[in-house]
């Protein structure tokens, strides 16, 4: 009740990031003055990856006095100079190093999944921050598909609430899943999104504004969003939430060192005890392998690079890599179906204005036996910029003169997409390819194949959004089938035979090695994963700090 009355005025209790930022510069404060540790210092924790999972874990534990080093493959961003209001110019934000994709339905990577650099992929995510539903944690029990998590929604709920205060998340009161409110009011929305919403209402489909991790009002020294539409290119305003502005300022202020441009290549193991002793990494500048010693290690490199690092960390004791005694590492990697349809309208809507994420629905999220498949999907408005729009037009089969004609019509279009919960399968897997990267480390290979349930879900949901366009009066419709997000690959479970980590994120058979990213998820729901990755890291930190997970 209080939260509803005081929208926009309640901040997080123990995270000062919003006050540490500078009003006039976008830099993450403290780079020059942050703690520096020697490789030979045995720090309390070395984390690999400065994204959603690693940053929250670091911020929480640094406040408990832990001495922490984060090893990050990408650069330490200086947004004023490094980030641009430009699609093509934002390529360095993505993980574009070579990866091999295979299987019957290979998943194209690059700009809509992994990030590279301090802040991780949340630097370029759209901003949607929905929670998972309680049902996501027990799909095997409820629906006979997927897997049950070893933890329940109720164990994450307080962490969802805390992270929502930290980002902060703006949106209407949320009627789906575990109904809840958001700390910030919903943003005004564009006419492009309103047009789609009217179509949904015609069909009896409920939609709500948000939930987005974008400041509506001011939040400490973070300003209001300016609706420039470049959320996916890195927010130069500091309005959109990413660990770069929400957790790393506080982490640095509490003694965390972020070692950027450093690629982790191996987790070191003591052969006699089986404990992790540190991480070997290579600095881009000199290519010399170094080893950071640590009492504990946490991997937060996302669903491709975490399995890759586990598999590459072989030793006499663990010849098949870490956590892989039962051949589980890299399995059950999931992506979400992310088809989009665009409709043409008489007036100029200019959908590039405002954040791409505006209005969404979780009405189709749960299993409905009448639909003929298990689990479901969510619906979200999006708004591609010109290069993204060109890919949409091409996917519908147009090139040359026809493409130019559709492109010239850009301002008359509005776009809506789905996120399908595609199910986890053991053979959708990350392995090591024969090719190697410049450091001699094998690159990842990701094989992926859809199931009949997946295809039925995608087909049904594409029809729903197409119907929304028709109901909204669209004069022409273009469709693109695509995929987004990554989770799984090092999932949590009840035993080494079905998972890589336990409910405390501890890798089976390595007592001081933890995983804190989206790869731990046994299922993915139909929700964008960022908020859940942060909430899981927040819970892990609480358990590590209390000793429960040690």
């Amino acid at each position, binding site marked *: 009740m209080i939260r509803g009355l005081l929208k926009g005025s309640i901040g997080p209790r123990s995270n000062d990031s919003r006050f540490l930022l500078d009003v006039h510069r976008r830099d993450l404060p403290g780079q020059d003055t942050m703690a520096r540790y020697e490789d030979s210092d045995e720090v309390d924790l070395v984390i690999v990856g400065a994204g959603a999972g690693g940053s929250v874990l670091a911020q929480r534990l640094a406040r408990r006095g832990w001495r922490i080093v984060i090893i990050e493959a990408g650069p330490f961003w200086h947004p004023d100079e490094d980030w641009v209001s430009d699609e093509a110019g934002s390529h360095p934000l993505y993980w574009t190093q070579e990866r091999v994709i295979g299987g019957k339905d290979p998943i194209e990577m690059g700009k809509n999944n992994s990030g590279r650099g301090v802040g991780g992929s949340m630097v370029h995510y759209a901003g949607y921050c929905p929670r998972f539903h309680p049902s996501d944690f027990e799909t095997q029990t409820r629906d006979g598909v997927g897997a049950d998590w070893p933890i329940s929604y109720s164990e994450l709920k307080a962490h969802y609430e805390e992270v929502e205060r930290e980002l902060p998340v703006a949106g209407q009161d949320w009627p789906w899943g575990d109904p809840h409110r958001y700390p910030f009011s919903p943003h005004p929305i564009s006419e492009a999104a309103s047009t789609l919403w009217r179509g949904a209402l015609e069909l009896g489909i409920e939609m709500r504004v948000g939930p987005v991790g974008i400041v509506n009002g001011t939040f400490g020294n973070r300003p209001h969003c300016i609706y420039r539409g470049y959320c996916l290119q890195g927010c130069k305003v500091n309005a959109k939430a990413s660990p770069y502005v929400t957790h790393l300022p506080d982490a640095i202020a509490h003694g965390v060192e972020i070692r950027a441009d450093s690629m982790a290549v191996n987790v070191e193991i003591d052969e006699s005890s089986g404990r992790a002793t540190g991480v070997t990494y290579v600095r881009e500048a000199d290519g010399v392998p170094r080893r950071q010693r640590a009492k504990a290690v946490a991997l937060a490199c996302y669903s491709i690079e975490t399995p890759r690092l586990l598999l590459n960390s072989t030793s006499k004791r663990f010849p098949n890599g870490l956590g892989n005694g039962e051949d589980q590492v890299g399995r059950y990697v999931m992506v979400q179906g992310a088809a989009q349809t665009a409709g043409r309208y008489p007036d100029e809507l*200019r959908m590039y204005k405002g954040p791409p994420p505006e209005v969404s629905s979780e009405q189709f999220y749960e299993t409905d036996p009448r639909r003929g498949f298990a689990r479901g999907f969510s619906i979200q408005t999006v708004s591609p910029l010109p290069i993204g729009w060109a890919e949409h037009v091409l996917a519908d089969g147009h090139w040359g003169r026809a493409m130019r004609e559709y492109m010239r019509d850009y301002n008359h279009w509005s776009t809506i997409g789905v996120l399908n919960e595609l199910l986890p399968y053991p053979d959708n897997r990350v392995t090591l390819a024969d090719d190697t990267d410049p450091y001699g480390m094998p690159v990842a290979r990701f094989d992926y194949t859809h199931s009949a349930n997946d295809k039925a879900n995608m087909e049904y949901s594409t029809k729903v959004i197409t119907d929304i366009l028709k109901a909204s009066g669209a004069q022409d419709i273009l469709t693109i089938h695509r995929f987004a997000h990554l989770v799984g690959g090092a999932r949590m479970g009840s035993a080494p035979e079905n998972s890589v980590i336990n409910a405390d994120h501890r890798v089976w058979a390595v007592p001081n090695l933890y995983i804190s990213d989206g790869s731990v998820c046994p299922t993915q729901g139909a929700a964008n994963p960022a908020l859940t990755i942060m909430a899981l890291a927040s819970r892990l930190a609480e358990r590590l700090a209390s000793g429960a997970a040690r």
Partner: protein
Amino acid sequence: MPDRDLTKPDHLPKLREGGEPRHPSWLPRQRRGTTPQMIGRYPDYDVLANSENWDEATRRVVEQRLQTSGALRFFSAEEEPTLRAFCDVTTAQDTDPRVPVAEMVDDKLASGRLDGFRYANMPRDPDTWRLVLRGLDETAHSRYRVESFAACDESSRDAIVAALSKGELSGGAWDELDVSRAWSVCMRAILAAFYAHPWAWNEIGYGGPAYPQGYMRLGPTSTLEPHERPGATAEDPVRVASELAP
């Protein structure tokens, strides 16, 4: 009789008989700034006129695309004519001013910029490009008895690219590729180049970079910022009528 009422969608290829787009001559010539081939769906709009309101980093990146570049670095002199012809056909650039797509693709490949994935049954992107250009020449030779794709007439080029877009080419270099995926590799680079260029933004009426300025007119009252201009429908009707008179 040409129709400039853009509230109607009649000009869109899928709604036209045969699915063929209209020749762009139904649109006015660009009057302000530059568009590819000076096609003016937004004839009085120049995104670059607003560049003084962009942040410096963005302005640097965008304006660099207007600089003429030197000789190609990745593609050879032998490959160049086919590369240029292929980029022209896929982006319908038949006259100057052209967005320098070939140069932009060449720069990407020469600088080793990757997209982050490679299909297991495909070569690396740079090798895919060379194979596609070779395949285009081979198909031009076997189908039309000319020495290269570049030597084909317009309709032959269109037919070859149409077959490529449907994955319907085989033999020679094509057998070393998954043809549909090769098409997507090339088009990803071509589209990213063409629609990164401010001339293409002029053509589609895109508002462009908006930091620190931001966008304010989200609709429904208006979707036009002060620096933006509406589509050709809002032209002076008297002038449109006189231009359209026989």
